[in-house]
């Protein structure tokens, strides 16, 4: 099928602001958008810059704004995108080059909520026990691949870049609701802030953007409820 890729380009060494370029391509409907981007890069214009690695939706490198929706380029098929496909870098982040954005502020926020398992008891000789129900409690948020599709889709984040953003809260949720973890209060202190969970206005863009189908807004809601009604541990 014939399609036109309309890609936002920006070369920091020559351009003062981004511009659009169009690439007519012949693709298979079963091709990933990533395949089409590679077709451009490998056979038409080698200067096009984007991140990618695993190419099947696990590594989280290639989140971008595709026809106005944040998705992974390797997890959307050309047959589902129509004849004109618009591709832009993630919103709310500084553009480094073409589709590559500066991820450092994103990871800095991620690090702020102590995104690691905390348990002050001595390690037992074998595993810690956890019931299947306790394990299920935080399953959804363990799926996060830190692709930033959610945070970059969030109007509250666009409005205020100090907001921790949905991905960071998802990562905190994964530990707060893990029955083995003892760091909930340390994390809740960070999250219980104007720029923490309370900046979320329950717009649900994040849930729609998540390529892992994590119920992001629900997870944020669970953290809010915990802060309001049940300051636990």
């Amino acid at each position, binding site marked *: 099928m014939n399609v036109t890729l309309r890609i936002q380009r920006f070369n920091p060494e020559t351009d003062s602001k981004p511009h659009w370029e169009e690439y007519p391509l012949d693709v298979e409907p079963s091709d990933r958008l990533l395949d089409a981007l590679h077709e451009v*890069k490998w056979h038409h214009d080698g200067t096009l810059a984007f991140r990618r690695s695993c190419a099947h939706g696990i590594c989280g490198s290639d989140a971008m704004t595709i026809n106005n929706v944040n998705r992974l380029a390797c997890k959307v098929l050309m047959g589902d995108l129509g004849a004109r496909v618009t591709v832009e870098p993630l919103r709310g982040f500084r553009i480094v080059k073409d589709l590559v954005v500066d991820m450092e502020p994103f990871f800095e926020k991620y690090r702020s909520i102590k995104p690691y398992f905390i348990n002050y008891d001595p390690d037992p000789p074998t595993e810690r*026990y956890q019931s299947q129900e306790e394990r299920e409690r935080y399953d959804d948020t*363990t799926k996060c691949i830190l692709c930033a599709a959610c945070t970059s889709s969030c109007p509250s984040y666009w409005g205020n870049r100090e907001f921790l953003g949905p991905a960071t809260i998802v990562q905190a949720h994964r530990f707060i609701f893990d029955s083995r973890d003892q760091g909930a209060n340390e994390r809740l202190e960070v999250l219980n802030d104007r720029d923490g969970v309370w900046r979320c206005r329950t717009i649900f863009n994040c849930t729609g953007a998540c390529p892992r189908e994590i119920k992001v807004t629900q997870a944020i809601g669970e953290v809010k409820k915990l802060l309001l009604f049940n300051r636990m541990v």
Partner: protein
Amino acid sequence: MYHSFDAIVVGAGGAGLRAALELGRSGSVAVLTKLYPTRSHTGTAQGGIGAALGNVEEDLWEWHMFDTVKGGDYLTDQDAAEILAREAVDTVYELEHWGLPFDRTSDGKIAQRPFGGHTHHFGKGAVRRSCYAADRTGHMILQTLYQQCLRHSVQFFDEYHVVDLLIQDGVACGVVAYQILTGEFHTFRAKAVLLATGGMGRLFRITSNAHALTGDGPAMALRRGIPLEDMEFFQFHPTGIRKMGILITEAVRGEGGILLNDRGERFMERYSPTLLDLAPRDIVSRAIYLEVRNGLGIGGKDYVHLDATHLGRDVVESKLPDIADFCRTYLGIDPATEPMPVQPTAHYAMGGIPTDTDGRVIVDEKNTALPGLYAAGECACVSVHGANRLGTNSLVDLVVFGRRAGRDMARYVRENDFVALPPEPECEACDEAERLLKGTGQERVADIRQELQDLMMDDVGVFRVEEQIAGALSKIGELKSRYQKVALDDRGQKFNTELLEAIELGYLLDLAEVTAASALARQESRGAHSREDYPERDDDHWLKHTLAYQTGEGVELKYKPVSITRFEPKPRTY
């Protein structure tokens, strides 16, 4: 730019991060990765990590060791396999203590399921040994290790592409890295360097491997005079999504899924009467090729069906959720109601940088170590996987030998001082980048890479024969000449990923050459190396490891003995 650390870790997958956790306790360590750490390919491992915990039925590490040796078609070094099987148990508990969210049994222990080639009582039947977190075990391991590195303030240099290994007077002394964001070269001086760069599946057209997996560590080592071990052994995983190569975990078969040919026959009954669909991967991949060759692929085409429809929706959605997602996304099918079209996909390099069981890189058939240089994970060859790796053992390898390498490096940096860097350490890497940036030829990186991948897939793939391998070797030589005439569109400094792809292609060409040369010389069939002109295993002549060196006159091959401690080689049937 110049940096100095006690230890450098190149690569932020499972092995590199596990080693960094050891190193962070004792001295200064920096982890360099050309991606972000959470993008590493460890994250795509699906089915589980093998360890004889015995949580759901009796299991012993000795059985795990035996399976590893037999799975490797007796090319496995048995001293290393013993360490792998023994320490697997402790490293899995360690991961749990760091918060890894394993699935649980009804009494709250780590859940375990069957996996290919893992047996009880030395081959009597399948055993549940694979510890898992749904079908995203690797994702959980990568996340857990990265999280612990953050907790212990390990320093990361993200998107730094290491392009040279520095060795002075026979001692490793650092690396040169290209900062992708700026295009600047950085020299990292260190007392010890760990190469943990992962696989090289991008040698082949159809692969489960990430685009980033171009064998950077092994190629850099090779160019510095270090041999590569057993490169002729490359694993094709039997169940990749047709054409795309995306992995469909063996756990589908562990949970009860079966392979069917065009007639609806469960053809593994003919190839492996005891383990059936859970035979080791080399055997299942060859079976699929033979079915296809006999016209029994689906519709006479080049694939078969992996059927999980009888498992029920609950099992598919709860135990294999990511697989269900892949099938819906890429195939538009629901695996709970329709079979999956699969074909073998290039998956794992058993070979790599030779090391001893403490991760020290060795440079000859006498096991002489190169001081200060270490390797671990897929880029290394200990050799625990021999001629064919068992499923789940790659994740075990990462944590067991990542930990051991990290510990020995910690000792090494305590006991040794820095050595002098070579003069102008960055110049060779700089010159090569300059040559590529200024190239005026007519060749495109993508064209040469595609031809290389086709060549390796068709002529140095699942089945091999002398004429084809020899032809491939000479064509690789031609591709290497054409590579000298590559021209790039992107001549810029910042985020020049075209330049990086060109550098990576150079690595792949070198690795293809030693792979083909090693495969051509080995006149037997063993594990993943299947010669149609030499269909039998030949222990009298070939029970030995290949060491391939790059020289001015092509590839030079030497051999070293296999460590055999407990299990004498026997015919390998399942």
